[in-house]
């Protein structure tokens, strides 16, 4: 048991565990000390100085975010001196900031804007010192605007320490120091895997997705285009919180209704292809286990993870499932299966996806993702872009009716819904694999050992086989690329042996994706994941192999899971990538 200490924050007595920071101790008294660079998910960088407090009897100030409280200390969080000081600090930051709030991606979500407003600063008092630098626009996924950067260091912590990607660093020092990519080459020519976690944690809009909103509007307003849309599982667990609804509410019906009002011609659901993914990947797993194929099998849904593995673990290429991600399976089928069924010229189809992810933009633009004969997915917009479009179109989301998706590629099961949370793909795969291997449906499809926010989760299952005997299966689930790196190093060295591993690049899985609302905390991600599991529990169909539209798709078009045709359209291959530029060096697996 940690020792408890007593202190006073603005004369309010509080008892906290030894080691608690002043910031957290103040929170216990019901007081939030202003912060800017601090983020509760990240180790404090102590850069901005906004959280300074005074301690009675000591000289100077202390940073509340990183100073541990001590017994008997009397903290002053608000004084004339501190108010003036915080104002001056924020004014100095604004003097070196491109203050273009009305047009900024992060307008109304900006932590600097909030703070400036709350403190009542004067942004003209201190002479402007900003030296404008060019924007980094070459990446498919992420835009970096150095003129808005306040050097809080959150992106560095996320990119270096949590994701271990090391695409970002500091060039130079002092005022001229800039957060950028090595040798200032730009995100497109760096090891950046486009996970977009930097954009989620950036407090000021210096890092955001490359917007495709205008492109999508152009398509929607083009009468000659047939615009088809898919939405990832995680989207529905996020929209509610952005439209003043109960954040735990999953808003599938309203989401479809909003899409219809935006003018999409067909509203489908990525959940359909998530179920399809389970059929393909589950079959691949069973085949590998039965036929002595390469194990462990590692999931391939997360494009951030795919680029990461291509860069840092090219030796594991054959372990990675050949299945495309649900987005790309869907894209291929829209321009083949759907086009054929409906008799639409695929050249006229525009396929749009709504993703919680910035890496999906990169994935859609990968040159090999053209198995339909066209670019399979034309535009990817993030959750944030989608919300902006809904607001721009003046749609009253909260009061929309509950509508349904369209037929053919709009149905899904609970197994698909949980794809959005860490552990979900694994759980969905186990549900179907057990049914196929044992010939019997699972009595309880909830596999709680695989759920939750722990970085690396492991489970051992014993699956009874229909031909008699049983099959022991070891699985692992990781989320966050730092965790993935740790686990993969052990897999490569042989220290750890599994049959199947689920990897999601973003902490929390897709609900914590780089395209999700700014400042999505670990707690937000956990809650969204929980919402998806609750939604799954409400559904009658909870296993992918029960999705009748998927079954029909095989019957009418694909033949069977892992059939020749399925391989041609739904599977892909991988490359080794340069650790410096991220460019492909050579194929590591070949296309079937």
């Amino acid at each position: 048991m940690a020792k408890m200490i007593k202190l006073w924050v603005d004369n309010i007595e509080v008892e906290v565990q030894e080691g608690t920071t002043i910031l957290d101790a103040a929170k216990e008294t019901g007081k939030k000390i202003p912060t800017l660079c601090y983020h509760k998910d990240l180790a404090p960088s102590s850069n901005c100085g906004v959280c300074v407090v005074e301690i009675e009897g000591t000289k100077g100030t202390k940073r509340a975010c990183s100073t541990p409280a001590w017994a008997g200390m009397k903290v002053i969080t608000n004084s004339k001196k501190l108010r003036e000081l915080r104002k001056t600090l924020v004014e100095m930051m604004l003097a070196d900031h491109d203050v273009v709030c009305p047009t900024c991606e992060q307008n109304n979500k900006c932590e600097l804007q909030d703070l400036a407003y709350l403190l009542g600063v004067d942004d003209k008092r201190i002479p402007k010192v900003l030296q404008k630098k060019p924007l980094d626009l070459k990446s498919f996924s992420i835009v970096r605007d150095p003129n808005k950067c306040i050097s809080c260091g959150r992106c560095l912590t996320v990119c270096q320490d949590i994701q271990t990607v090391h695409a970002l660093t500091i060039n130079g020092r002092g005022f001229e120091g800039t957060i950028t990519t090595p040798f200032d080459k730009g995100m497109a020519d760096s090891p950046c895997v486009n996970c977009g976690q930097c954009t989620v944690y950036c407090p000021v809009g210096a890092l955001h997705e490359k917007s495709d909103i205008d492109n999508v509007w152009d398509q929607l307003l083009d009468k000659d285009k047939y615009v088809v849309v898919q939405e990832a599982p995680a989207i529905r667990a996020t929209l509610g919180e952005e439209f003043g609804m109960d954040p735990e509410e999953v808003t599938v019906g309203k989401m479809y209704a909003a899409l219809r009002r935006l003018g999409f011609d067909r509203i489908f659901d990525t959940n359909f292809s998530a179920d399809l993914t389970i059929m393909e990947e589950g079959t691949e797993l069973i085949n590998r286990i039965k036929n002595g194929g390469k194990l462990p099998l590692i999931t391939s849904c997360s494009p951030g993870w795919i680029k990461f593995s291509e860069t840092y673990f090219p030796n594991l290429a054959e372990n990675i499932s050949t299945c495309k991600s649900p987005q790309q399976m869907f894209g291929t089928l829209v321009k083949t299966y759907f086009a054929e069924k409906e008799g639409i010229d695929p050249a006229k189809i525009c396929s749009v996806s709504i993703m919680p992810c910035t890496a999906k933009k990169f994935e859609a633009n990968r040159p090999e993702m053209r198995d339909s004969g066209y670019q399979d997915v034309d535009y990817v917009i993030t959750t944030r872009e989608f919300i902006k479009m809904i607001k721009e179109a003046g749609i009253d989301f909260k009061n929309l009716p509950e509508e349904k998706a369209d037929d053919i590629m709009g149905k899904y099961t609970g197994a698909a819904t949980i794809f959005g949370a860490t552990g979900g793909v694994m759980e969905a795969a186990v549900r179907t694999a057990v049914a196929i291997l044992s010939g019997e449906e699972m009595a309880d499809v909830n596999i709680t050992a695989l759920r939750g926010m722990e970085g690396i989760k492991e489970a051992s299952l014993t699956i009874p086989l229909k031909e008699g005997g049983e099959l022991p299966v070891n699985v692992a689930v990781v989320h966050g690329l730092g965790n993935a790196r740790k686990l993969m190093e052990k897999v490569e060295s042989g220290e750890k042996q599994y049959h199947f591993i689920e990897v999601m690049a973003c902490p929390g899985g897709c609900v914590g994706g780089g395209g999700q609302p700014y400042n999505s905390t670990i707690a937000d991600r956990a809650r969204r994941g929980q919402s998806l599991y609750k939604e799954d529990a409400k559904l009658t169909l909870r296993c992918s192999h029960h999705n009748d539209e998927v079954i029909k798709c095989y019957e009418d078009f694909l033949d069977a899971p892992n059939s020749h045709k399925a391989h041609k359209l739904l599977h892909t291959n991988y490359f080794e990538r340069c650790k410096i530029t991220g460019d492909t060096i050579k194929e590591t697996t070949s296309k079937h």
Partner: protein
Amino acid sequence: MKFYRSHILIGIDNTSLEAGVKEIEAALRTELDKNNLSDEINILETGSFGYFGTGVSMMVYPEQTTYVDVKVEDIPEIVEEHFLKGRKVSRLILNTNLLKKYNFNYKRRIVLDNSGKIDPENIEEYIGLGGYEAWEKALINLKPEEIVNEVKASGLRGRGGAGFPTGLKWSFTAPIKAEQKLVVINADEGEPGTFKDRLIMEGDPHKLLEGLMIACYAVGATKAYIYIRGEYKLCIERLEKAIAQAKEYGILGENIFNSGFDLDIMIKIGAGAYICGEETALIESMEGNRGEPRSKPPFPGVKGAWELPTVVNNVETIANVPAIIKNGAAWFTEHGVEGCTGTKVYTMMGDVNLPGLCEVDMGTPLRTIIDQYSGGMKDDRKFKGALVGGAAGVFLSDKLLDVKMDYNSLEEYAAVLGSGAILVMNDDVDMVEMLWSVIRFFRHEACGKCSPCTKGNEVLYTLVSKFRNGEGCEEDLDQMIEISQAMLDASFCPLGQSLIMPVKSAIENFREDFLMKIK
């Protein structure tokens, strides 16, 4: 051992190297040879004599004649007149009036007592003058806690700038049980106008090593590092040699003096960053990172380099330790003033007759230092002010010329002793220009980690530049003080916290200079 009639000490430092000392030394050898004097007269290379602007200097012992600004063409005359005929070459002797004033051979040199007297590349000369006796005494006769207590009792305070009591610092780390503890010497001397550590390392490297060894034994560290700024090539060279010699003599290494105590000393180098003089930034740099400071707590003494308990001390501080151990704390406290014992090495620069190093008792007023140890004001100009303590120092006006220079007394006047750099300015100097130069320095050296310092320096630079261009106004002066106060209150490390000193003192003490620039 060979006996010589005379010894000629030649000061080898950057100044003399630039002035061609090697050529002159060769000429001297040839000339002595030519006159068959090589067996009688010995040439010794030593470190800097501690004064500058005088080209190549040499001192002849035992008569202690100092020749300055010696050129190759002077050599035959020196040899013939001085060594053959016994007549001093008066035209080359250090200006006698200045010499009287300068009082070069003043006593009580604790830190610099050997500098300019011994060959720094020869351990035997150091030992010959009583070197490493303190180390032997410490290791054989004293317990670690006795050393810590002795240093505590001596009142020695850190000479890097902050003035933290050294014994107290050691006492935090000494009792910690850890597999490995470290002592790191901060030789990243970067405070503008400070070069005392360089001259200590160049002139008497073994003194630093001896002090370091004692510190290691006192706190229980078996590994030590000397972090030297990358620009100090000669120091690196001399210390590497000194470490090798100490190992060869069994003074350093395993089971030193059969005591069972092992110690290894290594050198780490910097690559050009003022901030690395801050102890946690220095530790980051040692580990191979950007030299950005760390949060305290944890303090380095508890968790420092590679998370090991790490004591970081300045060169000058540690160079005091052998004398304290050898002569005792009571002897040390005879020097200086109460609360601030010992001597202080100042680097005197600017408009004085004899810029260079001097070591005087703590508490000696600035007027005495200028008049008695630096030859007075150059060209008898009027004293306008002095920047005391380096860039992170204070612009003192003539009102403080008689204040005692020690940590406590200066604090009363919101001034600091800092690293001991004193830049003297005559009445021609424009303080706007000087402040601009100081702010430009900080702007260049701010590491960029924390926003208050990074942005603050840029804003200050913009504001002070306005005065330079004749565009400033009185409100700008108030804003400069406000910004530097905010930097004091919210900067992450002492770098940004320092700006208040030069900014406020320049504006308050020399306001006229700023007002004159307002159109």
